């Protein structure tokens, strides 16, 4: 039996700022993981990645990252994506800072 598919989000870095961004169901980019599209179908994942990569003028290095559904949208399953979602541990910089300033 095939292994169950781990859901994915598409993530990349923004060309100008370099910060972490996520692909939404509406083919736009968001800085907020909870607004990302959670792809639960394996066949869909590659197609969605191709769609995202069409926007490569504005983005850098799109890839599929493991995620799971949470009460407020997708959540990371691995600590690497958790750090990318938040920002560094040593300073209140990156995403955590950006969100505090909203």
């Amino acid at each position, binding site marked *: 039996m095939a292994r169950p598919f781990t859901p994915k989000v598409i993530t990349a870095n923004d060309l100008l*700022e370099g910060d972490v961004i996520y692909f939404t169901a509406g083919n736009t980019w968001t800085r907020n993981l909870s607004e990302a599209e959670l792809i639960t179908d394996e066949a869909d994942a590659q197609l969605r990645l191709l769609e995202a990569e069409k926007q490569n003028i504005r983005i850098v290095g799109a890839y599929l990252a493991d995620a799971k559904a949470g009460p407020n949208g997708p959540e990371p399953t691995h600590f690497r994506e958790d750090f990318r979602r938040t920002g*560094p541990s040593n300073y209140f910089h990156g995403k955590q800072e950006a969100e505090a300033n909203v």
Partner: protein
Amino acid sequence: MYKYNEFDEAFLAERNAQFRAQVERRIDGSLTEDEFKPLRLMNGVYLQLHAYMLRVAVPYGTLNSAQMRTLALLAEKWDKGYGHFTTRQNIQYNWPKLRDIPDMLDALGEVGLHAIQTSGNTIRNTTADHFAGAAKDELTDPRPYAELIRQWSTDHPEFQFLGRKFKIAITGSPNDRAVTKAHDVGLRMVERNGETGFEVVVGGGLGRTPLVGKVLREFLPQADLLPYLEAILSVYNVLGRRDNKYKARIKITVQENGIDTIRAMVEEAFMGLRGQFDGTDQQLLAEIKEHFAAPDFRSGSTEVFDAAYANDPVFRAWADTNLAEHRAEGHAIVTISIKAHGATPGDASAEQMRLMADLGEQYAYNELRISHQQNVILPHVHKNDLPAIHAKLKEHGLATANVGLISDIIACPGMDYCALATARSIPVAQEIATRFDELKMEHDIGHLQIKISGCINACGHHHVAHIGILGLDRAGVENYQITLGGDATETAAIGTRTGPGFAYDEIVPAVERIVEVYMARREAAEETFLETYRRIGMEPFKAALYPEAQKKVA
């Protein structure tokens, strides 16, 4: 100190203009990322986890106050107010915006700094003893040779597409503070029959396959340096593997072909190349040497220092750990620790950089150094100025008396910044430093180097640490492997693994247990951790780290 001539200045300006145009073309879409990436890497621009990173070289770790102020300006104007000094005498900015980077490079260019060859498969920044030109134990100042290497290697057409990055380190002192044995080429100045030359070591390196370099040539006359290096590089360029990135470093070439074969090939290439160097390099070297002439050291008594040393215990503690012996009478070398307990190793704020620049200008003949241990150095200070310097450092959180002690940790950026990381390094360093500060043990423990890397690339030099820590990913959880007995000096050694790794919340207690074993087993306070380890071996440490395993065996 080396000063750029008009040719150098024009070269930098032109190179920056080129990159500015490339950035514009990436932004307007005429270049794809695949096309742009090699161009940005050629200019020290990486894309990290949360942002871009700009890596700027501090050639052989030497800079003047104006240059340090420019580093501060970059931190303040285009970054988040700080910079990160690395083990390769570079400074990294963690948050630049792509559009701003050309401006940053222009600002650097105005003071003769750049990011060229801080990335890519080329000859990287040649690193040197951070006490060069000042140390009492020094035979010769190695920096003119490092500058010669820089000029020869910058944009050298043959060496822009090596199999892999290539790192050269140089020391003029028998006490190796430049980790020469863990570099692709290590150059150690030695004397033979009254002549100074180089012992050439090749094939050292850390990373996935950590190796101590081997002696390629016991004595190389000074005048032969460039043709000999060119011979080494050309042999590597031909023999070096390109089929596998992990086997592409010269250390593997040496390992696979044997040092004798490499030596024979290098010597042969050298014989051919030597004649092509018509002496221009030696004229250039003579000019470079003039720029490194020692300052006119001032004389005079050291009574102000002596009084402070006798009367102020805080000053005394700092002087005992952070000063090194200077070759000139009445002078000292000051290491400014940028490892305040709990701070990020190697980070300095713009304000701190400016203060250090001021101190360099006022008290250190306008010179500063960056050490591979991620600290900043005032190389030439008259001892009477030390109490005033200490007072200023204290005001800015820079007077931590911990150089060479357990909290003077080298740590790579790890998963907090680095896209290649498998675990974090910085918080581990922060917690260890904080813990031993709380225990008030670190002066008692004495000389002990902890070095931490967030992945096998070993940017934090963990293999050559007394206690090395390597962060790994074990089934989606951070895990830390410990090595003991590494050594980064002239007696270089690669550390040995203790056994299975430790979870994030177990790593600080594990380090504590290692230190407890040392404290209990050392023969005298003077016996350092490394000496004790070499005497008693791994077993007692293993027993303390893995009590469960011991029980099972029993």
